């Protein structure tokens, strides 16, 4: 054991924290990891200041798991910082991968979000109409707060990313595999690869019965059907992102009788998961007349939310076009 | 206005023509009309006439002046891509129209029956003979018959007054027929054509042009250049004819004298010139028709021949008459005089109102009416 220990960092940007939890979820395996690696930065668990990171020499960190999207100037700053300091930067989790749930904020704009959060939400009491500021004078001096961006961006839109490890959150087992791979010095996949996943999409794992009869006359929400727990959701008219989503999660949602929502993102052959799924769904709609087609499509109330639930900022269109964006 | 197609018209008209090709073959390329140097807007022929014929639009044909405006240079027939012979159609149409204008129906019979024509000529000749024998002094006076009393005394045998009376009688009758026929022509060409309303003044303004055309036949001259000698000879013939006609009908007293004038005397000079004009012309036309040299002489209807032959005989007997007379051959003169009349009278009676001669009158009038119509149309357009 004369090999020096690897240096690890974990950071969260705009995220729910689930990814960090998934790291914690490695349980005992953490000890194995720590045998080989030191955690040099992990705000949720360790008290290491930004300036400590800044002080590190470039490329000092061997592996950084960056989870969460880039939402504000702080996220961006740290992303860039970590990029500089890390040998390998992994976009960890759906948010870093393609924007994730926070990415749905791209369907609106900052002003509206603030309006909702600071004025309109039912639980808000804000009689002074205070809004977040980037600079605020207090008696101790001037506070500088991160700037809240208009758009949510996945990590690779801000910095160069070496690997992606998707999932909301990523399957812990996958993380362990990755860890072990790095630690054991296995041959690393080419840069830009999505790791901790399988090549094929979810249906491959899914054990529900699939046939070619995917003809949809009516779209159903899961509660609208009597799910027998065996038939492919699509064949029951429920939009399941499974075919357009990488497997690796162990079809957890479907096992729980909920259709896949696509947190693992598209396969490497699909550029835009929502588009691919829309294309497939379009194929399945069982109608020829424009009126009938439209009538069926009307049943999909929120195409963006349905097909891009976890991937809007990383998709082709990235965001909704709003006035004054 | 709707017009009913008359499929039989073609057969009717065929009787006026010569069996040379088939007007039904025309496929209306318009080459003939465009070739014709005489066509102009408002008077397009011969294609349109073929069309009227093919479709049996009798009224259209009867009311058109165009056949008279054609002088048969024959270019249209020569260049016709289907050998439909439009030139000959125009010729046949002139015959047809003559029969249309003629209210007596004689023209139709003459043009459609060879036998009828010859029979009429013979009958008239005989009538002339009988009349001559009854009303002249011949052969009552022995001397007159032999010319013993010194020279040829034509006025004794056939006193000019009586002959003149016959002249006038015949001229009047023929003029009556001719004029009524021309009236008919006017009715057809102008009155029946509802598309144009002719103001009265137009009849006066156009008179002059017709007179000029009559004496120069400049329209004929506009026809093909190849036809120059044709035009000259025809003009000369026509003028000669008119001259002789005038002398006989109006100045017989002066023309038919018992004394022989010197050669330079205008009476003789005019007579000679006219006779030469007539004779040369007739020989030229007969020769043309025999040789079928030109498009317009290729096909001869029997009425064409009758006209030429009768005119020829009349002229020939006239010349012989003169020859015998100046040579004092009284007996021969008198007989020739009779024969001359026997040729001349039927020639005029048949030809003038009912047959080929009539073109002398119809042509200028057709031009006249056409011009009148044209000027009327111009005014209409201006309005």
């Amino acid at each position, binding site marked *: 054991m004369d090999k020096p220990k690897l240096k690890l960092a974990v950071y969260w940007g705009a995220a729910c924290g689930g990814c960090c939890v998934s790291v914690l979820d490695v349980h005992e395996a953490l000890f194995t990891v720590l045998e080989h690696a030191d955690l040099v930065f992990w705000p949720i668990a360790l008290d290491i200041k930004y300036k400590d990171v800044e002080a590190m020499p470039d490329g000092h960190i061997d592996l950084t798991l960056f989870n969460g999207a880039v939402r504000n100037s702080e996220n961006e700053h740290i992303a860039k910082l970590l990029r500089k300091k890390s040998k390998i930067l992994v976009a960890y989790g759906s948010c870093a991968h393609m924007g994730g749930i926070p990415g749905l904020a791209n369907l609106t704009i900052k002003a509206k979000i603030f309006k909702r959060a600071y004025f309109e939400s039912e639980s808000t009491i804000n009689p002074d109409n205070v809004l977040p500021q980037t600079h605020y004078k207090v008696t101790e001096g001037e506070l500088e707060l991160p700037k809240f961006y208009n758009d949510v961006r996945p990590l690779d839109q801000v910095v160069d990313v070496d690997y992606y490890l998707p999932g909301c959150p990523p399957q812990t087992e996958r993380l362990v595999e990755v860890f072990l791979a790095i630690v054991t010095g296995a041959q690393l996949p080419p840069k830009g690869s999505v790791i901790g996943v399988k090549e094929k999409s979810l249906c*491959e794992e899914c054990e529900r019965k699939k046939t070619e009869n995917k003809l949809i006359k009516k779209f159903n929400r899961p509660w609208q059907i009597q799910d027998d727990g065996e038939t492919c959701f699509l064949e029951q008219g429920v939009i399941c992102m499974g*075919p357009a989503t990488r497997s690796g999660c162990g079809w957890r949602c479907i096992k729980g009788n909920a259709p896949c929502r696509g947190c693992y993102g598209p396969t490497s052959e699909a550029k835009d998961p929502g588009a691919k799924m829309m294309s497939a769904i379009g194929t399945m709609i069982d109608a020829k007349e424009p009126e009938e087609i439209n009538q069926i499509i009307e049943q999909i109330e929120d195409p963006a939310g349905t097909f891009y639930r976890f991937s809007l900022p990383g998709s082709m269109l990235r965001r909704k076009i709003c006035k004054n964006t | 206005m709707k017009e009913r197609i008359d499929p039989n018209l073609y057969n009717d008209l065929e009787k006026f023509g010569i069996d040379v090709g088939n007007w039904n073959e025309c496929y*209306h390329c318009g080459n003939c009309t465009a070739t014709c140097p005489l066509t102009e807007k408002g008077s397009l022929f011969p294609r349109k006439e073929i069309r009227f014929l093919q479709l049996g639009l009798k009224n259209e044909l009867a009311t058109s002046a165009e056949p008279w405006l054609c002088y048969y240079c024959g270019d249209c027939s020569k260049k016709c891509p289907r050998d439909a012979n439009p030139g000959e159609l125009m010729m046949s149409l002139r015959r047809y129209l003559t029969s249309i204008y003629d209210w007596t129906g004689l023209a139709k019979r003459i043009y459609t029956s060879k036998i009828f024509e010859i029979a009429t000529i013979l009958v008239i000749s005989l009538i002339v003979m009988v009349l001559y024998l009854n009303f002249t002094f011949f052969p009552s006076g022995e001397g007159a018959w032999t010319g013993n009393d010194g020279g040829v005394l034509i006025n004794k045998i056939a006193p000019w007054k009586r002959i003149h009376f016959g002249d006038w009688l015949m001229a009047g009758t023929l003029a009556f027929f001719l004029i009524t026929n021309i009236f008919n022509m006017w009715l057809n060409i102008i009155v029946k054509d509802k598309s144009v309303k002719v103001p009265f003044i137009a009849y006066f303004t156009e008179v002059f042009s017709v007179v000029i055309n009559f004496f120069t036949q400049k329209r004929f001259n506009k026809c093909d250049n190849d036809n120059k000698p044709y035009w000259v000879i025809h003009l000369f013939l026509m003028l000669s004819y008119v001259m002789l006609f005038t002398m006989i009908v109006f100045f017989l007293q002066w023309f038919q004298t018992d004394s022989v004038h010197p050669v330079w005397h205008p009476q003789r000079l005019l007579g000679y010139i006219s006779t030469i004009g007539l004779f040369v012309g007739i020989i030229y036309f007969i020769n043309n028709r025999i040789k079928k040299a030109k498009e317009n002489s290729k096909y001869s209807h029997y009425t064409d021949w009758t006209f030429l032959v009768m005119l020829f005989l009349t002229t020939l007997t006239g010349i012989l008459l003169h020859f015998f007379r100046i040579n004092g051959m009284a007996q021969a003169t008198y007989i020739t005089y009779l024969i001359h009349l026997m040729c001349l009278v039927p020639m005029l009676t048949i030809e003038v109102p009912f047959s080929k001669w009539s073109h002398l009158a119809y042509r200028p009038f057709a031009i006249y009416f056409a011009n009148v119509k044209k000027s009327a149309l111009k005014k209409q357009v201006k309005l």
Partner: protein
Amino acid sequence: MEEKRIGVYICWCGTNISLMVDVETVAKEMAKLPNVVISKDYKYVCSDPGQDIIIKDIKEHNLNRIVVASCSPRMHELTFRKTLVKAGLNPYYFEMANIREQDSWVHTDRVEATKKAKALIAAAINRVSFHEALDSRSVEINPATFIIGGGISGLSAALEIADSGKKVFLIERSGRMGGHVADFDLTFPYMYSAQQMITPLIQRVKSHQNIELFLNSEIKEIFGYIGNFESTIHSKDGKETAVKFGNVIIATGLKTFDPSNIENYGYGKLPDVITSFEFEKMLLNGIIKTKDGKEPKNIAIIHCVGSRNKNYHEYCSRTCCMTALKYANQIRCELPKANIFDIYADMRSFGKGCEEFYTLSSRRNIKFLMFDQENDLPKIVSANSGDNCDMLIEINEKLTGKTIEVPADMVILMVGMEARENAKEIAHAVGISMCGNSFYIERHPKLDPVATTTNGVYIAGGCQAPKEIPDSVAQAKAAAARILATIAKGSVEVEVTTACVNEDFCCGCQTCIKVCPYTAISFDAEKKVSVVNEVLCKGCGTCGSGCPTGAIKCKHFTDMQILSQIEGIMKISHLELQEA
């Protein structure tokens, strides 16, 4: 990965392109794009010397991708692919930019047209980088031929092939062969007997050892591909026969126009207004008579019924003029004294001996009237008692400019030809295209009038466009020639640009299976992946876009190729924006 070395050739096409596109500048600018090694402009790239330049450059500069910007790829893509082969490159390392039909010929602003050309060429350059080597494949040809339609075209083609000793399946929807020709009495312009012409053909077909005849039969669909088609023949008596064959000739012919909709003619209302085909029957039966059994004194023939008129069909039916003349002659024989009126628009007597026939007819006292088939149809009305005829036709006669009344006791409408009502089904069953008039589209209107865009399927006779007997026969035999050539060779090359499934990505969702119109995709239950039968696949690419995982690749139309093409187009547009 190999280094991409792209050669770009921009064609002047004489002045066709160069007048509207600044080809020299374009060539210079394209040279600056990444991977472009050579960029040239040339007067006629398609010419022999033009192709020689490409070959020479490939060898000298070690090019491995070629882009030609010239006419439509529909015109010359094959030519240049062959050029690449000659130079030792895979033919699919080639891309064409259409800067003539879709640029220089349709625009008037030289600056814009040049910009567009740049974008299209840049797109092609981008695309060609992603091109992959594809290998041509050949399949064996089943020597049997399937012919649909037992009219004169079908019979001629069948005999031509069968006489070569090759098997023919001939199916005919009705119970008898000979089609329309069997209903004809005489043929124009030489007035030969149609019956005597068609009878030996039918007899020979019936007794031919190589021809298997299916009367009263139809097919629903043809499966397979060139050389290896199969289908089931459904006979009206319920029998079904499965057949396999290598080529198909469609000779379904056409049907006659139904003139009931033309109000002016009163067809269906006036008893003695009949169509040409009804009249033909009268001739065959030897007697021309009106519905009350009288001998008609006046017979009118009206041309262009349903043809050359935008309310019905804009096209000319090609045969009616001469057929009308034929009738006129036949009527003249039967009724020497009758009045015959032929009401035409343009007399189209264009074939060998036809103009002479027209001349001959015009000598037989037939009245020709010209009408305006486009805007001013004649009107047929019942006559009054005094008119001495049954009907009157009121027509604005064009050559006199007069309105004319034509008496008629019988009116023959020269009905035009139109596609059969089931033309579309057959087109679908076989997989060929139709033009706006529902006639089948030939592969090339000039140089390939018998083939279709579907390999192994040929069209002959009236189903391609109205045509007369000699031309139908010639076309049928031309189709036979094409088939005999492939049979003689024994094999034929098939579609290369098919779809294929990347088993590494296919998750087995089976979305694609119903997408394929040719049932070329099936599910391999063992491997749990979809499989494309590449000989059945015609390369439409619908499955490729329908596959949610991206496992199906449409060869030569891959996602990457098209996406890069889009990038290429937009790159130039952006550049220009920046410049502006």
